[in-house]
Each structure stands twice: as C-alpha cells, then as structure tokens.
C-alpha cells in the first residue's frame, strides 16, 4: 500500500506502517554510515552528545558522491545496513525511530526495533541517481573530515522507500522471498 508520511516519525505513524508498505518520506533525515556510527558510539561511551537528537529521527545509511555545482547532492543510494548493526540497538534505545538502508539486519536489531516501536525501510540499492532527485538539500553537520562518511542533514520530498521491518518485527525479506521461492 502506498503511503505519504512526514519525517521525523512519531510513535503512532511508526506503528501504523506495515512490512511491504511503499512509503514516500517528506521532511528531514540524517545520514550516517560506518565511520560516523563508530564515532557516535565512541561519543556515547565517553558521555559526549551526538551530532543530532535520536528521538523520532530517521538515519539514512548513505555516503553520497560529490555534488556538481548547483545541485544539492550527487548520487545518493543506500549502503548495506548490516555493517551498522553493532551500533544500532543503542541508538534505537535513545529513540531513533527509523532507518533507511538495504539488506538484512541481526536479531539484536530486530529486537531493538520491536522494543522501541521503530521501523526499518529499504531504499532501492543502486538507484542512487533516481533517489538523488528526491533530496532537496544537504548540509554536513558533523564529522566533516570523514568526507562522504560525514553526517549530513537532508531535506527530502517524496523519498521512496519500502517498509522491510515493521514495529512488530515482521520482515519482508523473509516473507517475500518465501512467496516467490520455487524450491
């Protein structure tokens, strides 16, 4: 089912989403991938603040290619989420409400998603040129020295994603593949 929602997400909207929903996101999201997650994890361990509030926010696992002059961003598709799994439960427990990436998550992440009523979305991997058209603006807000891995604040309009894991822990990767498996 197609849904249009705004981000950040609140509990009620997150709870209303179901694995398999095709969702268009409009509003503000933040990027962070491997190196930024490592730094955020170190910051938490040392009692320092994070580059942005986790509560109700959505992290996009993405490191863009450089923008041409006059464009907000370069190619901007998802990276593989599982590399962030080690760091994710702690962020979910701080109120992180959504993640956009691609690929399977660990059982620990699934439990943290359910425990916190969060949602895991997939964007289409390798469609970075198409997805860039739904990003209106991009601003580096932390870890600038990490280059493509810096934390960016993105304004998005009708950014297309699919709910892969809903707040009940249903996983589209498991159910859809079973449906089309012919073995």
């Amino acid at each position: 089912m197609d849904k249009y929602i705004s981000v950040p997400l609140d509990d009620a909207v997150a709870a209303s989403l179901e694995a398999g929903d095709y969702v268009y996101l409009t509003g503000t999201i933040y990027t962070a991938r491997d190196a930024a997650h490592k730094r955020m994890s170190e910051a938490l361990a040392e009692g320092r603040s994070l580059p942005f509030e986790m509560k109700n926010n959505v992290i996009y696992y993405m490191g863009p290619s450089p923008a041409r002059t006059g464009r907000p961003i370069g190619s901007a598709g998802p990276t593989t989420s599982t590399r962030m799994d080690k760091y994710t439960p702690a962020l979910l427990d701080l109120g992180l409400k959504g993640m956009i990436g691609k690929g399977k998550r660990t059982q620990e992440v699934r439990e943290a998603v359910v425990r916190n009523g969060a949602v895991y979305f997939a964007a289409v991997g390798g469609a970075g040129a198409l997805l860039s058209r739904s990003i209106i603006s991009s601003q580096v807000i932390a870890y600038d020295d990490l280059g493509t891995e810096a934390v960016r604040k993105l304004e998005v309009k009708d950014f297309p994603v699919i709910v892969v894991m809903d707040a009940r822990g249903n996983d589209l990767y498991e159910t859809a593949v079973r449906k089309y498996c012919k073995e």
Partner: protein
Amino acid sequence: MRTIAVSEITGNIKEMCIEANYFLSEDMKRAIQEAAAVEEAPLGRQILEQLEENLKIAGEDRIPICQDTGMAVVFLEVGQDVHFEGGILEDAVHEGVRQGYIEGFLRKSVVKDPICRENTKDNTPAVIHYTIVPGDKVRITVAPKGFGSENMSRIFMLKPADGIEGVKNAVLTAVKDAGPNACPPMVVGVGIGGTFEKCALMAKHALTRPVDSHSPIEYVRELERELLEKINRSGIGPGGLGGSTTALAVNIETYPTHIAGLPVAVNICCHVNRHAVRVL
C-alpha cells in the same frame, strides 16, 4: 616494436572511469530491460523499472548510476611488442584513476590502510591486473567495483570428489547468503580451478564478459544456464524483496588445477556491473 606514451594510458583511464560510472554497457541495459518484462512480482517489476529510470537519469544528469563508484579494478592486457615511454606505467594508471574520480564527481571510497582507514581522497590506488599477450596493442578494461556485492563474494577450496555438484552448491550458497545485501539482480562471476588466487581473479574477470555471451566450453555453458535458472528460482528477486529475477547472468571461467584440489571463487556484482573497454 610500438611505442606508447604513458600519458595516453592516463587519459584513457580517466575517461573510462567516468564513462563506466555514468553509463552502463548495452548488454547490461538490455538484460535489465528484458528482466522487467518477465518479472513475476509486481514490486519486483516496479524496482526493475526504477533501475531503468535510474540509468536514464544518470546519463542525462551526468551523475553516477550508484553512489558507490567503486574501487577501480583495471585489467591491462599488454602486447609484448609494446614499449612504454614518458614515465612509469603503474603510476600512469593510478593518475588516470585520480583524475577520473576527481573530475568526474565520483565518490572517493578508498582508504590508505585497511586498519587505520584514512581516506586517500582521490580513490587511488587502483587494483591492477597485468597480462602480457602477443602483439602490439594494449587492451584496457576498467571495472569500478562496488563493495555491497564485493563483501558477499566467497572462495571455496573444494575437494576433487565434490565435483560439479559441489561447484553448484558453492555458487548457490554464496548467492543465497548474499541475498538483499548484494543489490540484486546480480551478475555472478565464477572461477573454477587454478589455485587460490587464480580462481578469484577468474571470477573477477568473468564479470567483465558481456552478460549475453556464453562460455565456449559446452559443459560450462550448460552449467551457466543451469545455475542461472536455479538462482532465479530462489525467490530473492529485485532488491531482495521477492521475485523471479535474482541474477541477470552467471559467467564462468575455468583453468587447469592440481590433482588434489577444486578451487571455486564466486565474485558477486550488483546490477551496476560496470566495465569500460578500450584497445590502444
């Protein structure tokens, strides 16, 4: 003897890095288009159509097809009658990659050391594979390799007794484990035989073969066909979200091996299977 200035290598590699990242080869485009026409799953069809749209936008906007513009893998087949002048060949290749990734607005994804992980900021160095061949030409293949799929690649040191069934199991295991992480529909490069490193290199090289071509060896051709069919019955589908298009092709290369071994390497590539080829 033919003399080639290394600056010519630099210039060509620069252009090829950019070209490969903005434009997918015709065989890959056709394969995605054909898959969209036969995909069973409605969501799978929608994703394949988005991939076609994505290729169109990349060409129009001159923006990389995928933000992971890869680590540059360069195959250099150098004719033994060629003499290079004006510098060091290897430096010329890295310089071409450096210029291409900077001038082409491509992502800088390479870190200087695997543990210290400081970005080199120009995507160098490339990974270069040289072959000396007869003649006075230089054939250059630039294949920028993304790591979503690279991370899901595997090597299996099978026993001779495992035979062809063992090979099939190895390939299917690698593909199923890769699942949605490798951005299906994938292209599967397989190397069978040789040694530990030789089979990996064959698997990588197999990815540069057009996806609508087939092995000249009859049993290998049949194995490619059978594996592709089995992979597409797995249900993984486009984006790993279910469907009948999990792979666009299985390309296999083989080489003689040792009486005691049966090495098999499976190099998985996403649907952005990039390769540009030029002959100088």
